[in-house]
């Protein structure tokens, strides 16, 4: 029984590793400039975690195989080196491993969060609400008009609560239901939640950031590949959470200019 158990553990361990090694399910293709650092960090971590996983499972299996149901007369033995050896090994191996991961991971994190957006980054505001995203572009004046929560009227397509009659800055604001951005240009995404907590996740873009109601945050990124991607909500926001999404279209600069003109005409 113990031997079958040991074999089962090894089979499960190797079986679990196969889809990882084969990339059966892998991180979605990266289309961001900051993504490679994250992917590299992920790859390093997978290698270290994978080795730790396989090594300890196989060791466990081997000891179960070797030391179960031994002959009655056998004496018990202690692991050479004893506990101290193992503690030192844990500190040295795992300690340096996590320290290295931590330091390099911090670099990846810093590249996302500790660098300010470029001055010419394209500002786009995204508003999350139960259960849809809406986007706002500044229009020619480069300014977003103020939001008046009491004027939000979804029946009238005033999703942001803009007062276009009184606020000069709001008049040329362009509100859209899908997000389009030009390729290879930095985007400064200003995040605003209308009601509860939501999140902005585009796996391909290596961006995930929660919306905090009452606290407007921003992220910035540059997309490097033209295409249509999905923006999904990852923070439980109510019954329609599963269907809270929008499309992100990364366009060539020319296409983007046409698109924004079209959208302006529809306002």
């Amino acid at each position: 029984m113990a031997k079958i158990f040991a074999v089962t553990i090894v089979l499960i361990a190797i079986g679990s590793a196969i889809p990882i090694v084969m990339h059966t399910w892998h991180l979605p293709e990266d289309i961001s400039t900051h993504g490679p650092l994250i992917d590299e960090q992920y790859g390093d971590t997978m290698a270290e975690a994978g080795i730790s996983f396989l090594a300890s499972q196989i060791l466990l299996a081997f000891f179960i195989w070797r030391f179960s149901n031994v002959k009655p007369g056998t004496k018990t033995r202690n692991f050479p080196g004893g506990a101290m050896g193992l503690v030192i090994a844990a500190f040295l191996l795992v300690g340096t491993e996590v320290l290295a991961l931590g330091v390099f991971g911090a670099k990846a994190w810093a590249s996302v969060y500790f660098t300010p957006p470029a001055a010419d980054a394209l500002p786009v505001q995204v508003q999350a609400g139960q259960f849809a995203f809406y986007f706002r572009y500044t229009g020619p004046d480069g300014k977003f008009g103020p939001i008046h929560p009491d004027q939000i009227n979804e029946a009238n397509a005033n999703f942001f609560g803009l007062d276009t009659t009184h606020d000069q800055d709001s008049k040329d604001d362009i509100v859209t239901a899908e997000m389009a951005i030009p390729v290879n240009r930095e985007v400064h995404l200003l995040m605003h939640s209308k009601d509860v907590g939501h999140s902005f996740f585009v796996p391909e873009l290596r961006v995930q950031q929660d919306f905090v109601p009452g606290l407007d945050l921003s992220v910035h990124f540059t997309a490097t590949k033209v295409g249509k991607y999905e923006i999904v909500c990852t923070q439980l926001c109510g019954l329609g959470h599963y269907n809270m999404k929008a499309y992100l279209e990364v366009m060539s600069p020319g296409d983007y200019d046409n698109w924004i003109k079209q959208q302006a005409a529809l306002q």
Partner: protein
Amino acid sequence: MHDTSAHAAQHGAPTSFIRKHIFSLDHKVIGKQYYALALVAVVWGMVLSWIMRIHLGYANFAIPGLHLLSANGAPGNIMTPEYYLQLMTMHGTIMVFFVLTTAPFAAFGNFFLPIQVGAEDMPFPHFNMMSFWVTFVAFLVLVSSFFVGDGPTLGGWTQYAPLSAVGSVSGPGQGLGVVLWAASIAIFCVGQLLGSLNFITTTLDMRTKGMSLMRLPLSAWAWFVTSVMGLTAFAVLMPACILLILDHVAGTSFFVPSNLVINGEVLPHSGGSTLLWQHLFWFFGHPEVYIAIVPGLGIVSHVLITNMRKPMLSHRVLIYSMGALAVLSYMVYGHHMFVSGMNPFSSLAFSFPTLIITIPSTIVVLIWLGSLYGSKLRINSASLFALGFISMFISGGVSGFFLAQPSIDIMLHATYFVVGHFHLVMAVAAIFGIFSGTYFWFPKMRGRMMNETLGKLHFWLTFVGAYCIFMPFHYLGIAGNVRRYQAFTDDYLIPLIPVHKFITIAALLTGLAQVIFLYNLFHSYFKGAPASDNPWEATSLEWSTATPPPHNNFGDKMPVVYHDPYQYNVEGASTEFVMQTSPEQYNNPHEEK
């Protein structure tokens, strides 16, 4: 070292049925009551997960009778999105609080901690009785939310504000459902605080003659460490829940900022902070993970030593590691909030302790593996589940490397990777600890043996099944599958549905295998072969008393302890194992003093 006979909780054996079995002051009865509660809760929680799994694998499949569970949740037996989330919330809450906290900690701890330290009972038996009944009321309050208004809350067991704080306008169950949820958890906290107080005092003040702290078995140490964590963690969660209730019923705005608009209405709240809830919740929530798993570490060590026929390589190192886990568990909670909008510098600050906590975890695993070396391992249901625990703990632990790093968390946060991680390391591992403890201690608790053949069959199906369910979760997460979705309608998620189908089938079959356990438990309870006082040839105090133990645990004479808890195959001893109470003198150079 204390002579406890003078100030032990003195209460005579009760005679009436009610004082004996219902409002009992006896820690052993209370322990069994906790176990029974956890059993009811785990069955309920598992049934909820089946319903969820069927829906995830086979959306819009009409589950016969589903409409009976909820008036609005399942028109024509077809699951609505809100009902899925309500089931999910209840599954999480029931499992985390009423199973993973009650069974390994409150159930086994209540029964065996006083016996293992050599006490007649806990120091505050009335608090102890109250602790169970308060927990029971908390369970009733939680379950009652199925039957009132528009059902239980759908906000998830983490109950993030402001979704949880603005009332029913934000979704079905978000009014009364949340209030009942928060009330239930606040009541639950009271029960755990009373329990923790008893556990701590028992360990520190009730030890019998000769029982130094270092002579306590690892299980007793685990419960002690857990109760210290419980005292601080639940003391934070309880006020948080009360504040949440106030936001609902008293018009306060602790967790709700100004100017939120739902359905075109500006909500009448202002000035609150949504991140405040997350900080309060995870300051409890992360220690809670260790509250669920540390008793498992203790139980599994205790079971393994008995079945390895040798002590762990180092008793002290395991105790210090558990202590380190407890201390660090408060410093790592921020890793749940890397992308939540807190300052990105804080994310880095929380990242390092989270990575460092892998060191004590690794030490525990290495000590286990190193101790297995050169052992004389006995394979039985209890030791199989203990070894299975180690395997699960490793598998669930290594994924922690990913989630400890904010940069990778950008990709994996709120995906099935996280779900796979915490189910393996916290849920499945802890449940394996409970199973191991059950097969090991059932003879002592009931006086009858459990069926070994059924126990092993149960183990095989559960071990393989659990991996089939939870390993694929990681793959789904890597592919970007967001958690807490009731259906997968996104273009990139649709190709993943076959994986969900596989998981659903695995979950149903593994769940079905638990019927074997239930049958074994109930059959053995009434018909099991009589157990001897020490069927496993173990050394700690619970095995030196009668089976089942008498009302005051040790009969007329309190035990006196002469040895470390795990004297197996000691050089110079006359027998293969030496009970802690054996006055035999021999020279053991490794013995703790």
